[in-house]
């Protein structure tokens, strides 16, 4: 029971503690305006280069923006504790680590879904793309799975935050990496082979491919392999992220570097 309480209540409290994010002055520019303009920028570059349709860029960038809260907020829920001087207190408690850390990921996943759905809807309306109504439910599912997978990568990033000070840099690096490698704006076939190969093992790639097929009218059944691959990658990254957090916690304790990184 205690673990369940830590998972849900602790996770929600931690997310709310990111009170700066809840300020409309930060939330709206970061989660609403920025993704829209990223979609517009790449859609217009696409029109310039005659590479792909507007739909290609709306789907790719809307899903990629799910990773923004998943990377930044996930890292900040741990790095922020250090900033507020509460990290040693939390790690000194006997609370089981699994619900303690994974509970923090639940609100972040929800955040990622909301950002992605907003970007998809607003970007689609602005650029006038057509998506079959019947595909909307399946698209929502793919977005949720993708946000979950990105949160796994966010956990890895958060673990790095236990050892290295500047999570803003690492979050930006991961965000940029996903933008280049996952076929967000450049079809995987047009990237070098080694980049496409790496893309198969990171979150987003399969989710974006599935979402593009759904938006083109494919059924959920026909993309179930892609959705399963995205979910599987998410599970691997969540497990790796959790293990990495425990490792970094131990290293930080050994080096007495919890507060200084």
């Amino acid at each position, binding site marked *: 029971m205690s673990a369940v309480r830590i998972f849900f209540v602790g996770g929600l409290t931690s997310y709310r503690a990111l009170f700066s994010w809840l300020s409309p002055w930060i939330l709206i520019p970061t989660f609403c*305006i920025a993704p829209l303009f990223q979609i517009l920028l790449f859609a217009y570059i696409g*029109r*310039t*280069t005659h590479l792909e349709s507007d739909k290609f860029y709306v789907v790719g960038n809307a899903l990629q923006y799910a990773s923004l809260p998943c990377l930044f907020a996930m890292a900040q829920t741990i790095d922020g504790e250090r900033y507020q001087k509460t990290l040693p207190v939390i790690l000194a408690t006997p609370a089981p680590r699994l619900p303690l850390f994974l509970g923090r990921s639940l609100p972040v996943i929800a955040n990622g879904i909301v950002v992605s759905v907003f970007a998809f809807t607003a970007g689609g309306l602005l650029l006038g793309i057509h998506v079959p109504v019947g595909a909307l439910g399946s698209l929502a599912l793919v977005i949720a799975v993708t946000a979950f997978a990105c949160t796994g990568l966010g956990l890895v990033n958060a673990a790095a935050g236990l050892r290295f000070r*500047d999570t803003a*840099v690492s979050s930006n690096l991961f965000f940029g990496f996903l933008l280049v490698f996952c076929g967000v704006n450049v079809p995987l076939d*047009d990237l070098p082979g080694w980049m496409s190969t790496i893309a198969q093992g990171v979150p987003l790639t399969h989710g974006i491919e599935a979402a593009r097929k759904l938006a083109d009218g494919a059924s959920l059944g026909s993309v179930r392999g892609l959705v399963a691959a995205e979910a599987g990658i998410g599970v691997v990254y969540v497990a790796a992220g959790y293990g990495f957090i425990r490792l970094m916690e131990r290293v930080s304790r050994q080096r007495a570097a919890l507060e200084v990184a």
Partner: protein
Amino acid sequence: MIRFLRLTWVGWLLNMKSLTRSGLFIFTSVIEPLIFATLSYYLFKAGHRPGTLLYASLSAGLMGIWTSTLFGSGGVISWQRWQGTLEPTVASPPPLLLVLFPLTLATASIGLYSLTATLLWGRFVFGIPVHLAHPATFALAVPVMIVNLGALGLVIGGSFMLYRNANALSNMLEFPVWLVTGALVPLSLLPGWVHPLSWILSPTWGFRAVRAAAIGGDAWPALGMCVVLGVAYAFLASYLVGLFEFRARVRATLSLT
């Protein structure tokens, strides 16, 4: 005049050193432009427009210059506030505008890292030859654009003085200005109502001048517009900084975060 030049030099140098030691700034001025240079390269190459690869490489560098100006100038007041140096800075004898100018100039200057990084990246990673059409004009256009963006940075920094969440506003303005100023997309593709907006933004003319000098074309009209807008920004910044400094003093909110 000598005092002003000395103040500018010392302030510029100090801020350049400070920014160069910031991981986030190195990311925004070097790594992020490389990410966009890579994306641009593949987008233009996949779109079968290889003749424009230098354009893509150069544009990514110019986008980086805007990013570093925006983040640096937008945050210049907030960072001083967090470090507790804003009040001594405002209280110091020189006008605040003259103290801020070297700082915003430094943030624009650090954008040179972006331009250098993307051109070298294009040359050595993607094999894009860097043949400048008008090297002398290019050598003039870049510093003119940097000083101009420094002046625009003053307007941004001054405007953000009263807002504690200036960094979020900076985040919001990065992509829109890339789009509106034709950094990577020709303005002719954008809706007509965007054009007047792009004309009053100096990056439009700065990018145009640097591009014309590098790839070919007449850079001088755009350079002229840069100078005109730079002077206009300086007057606007002088008014805004004075106004906001006065308001912050009256409300006693200068150091409040």
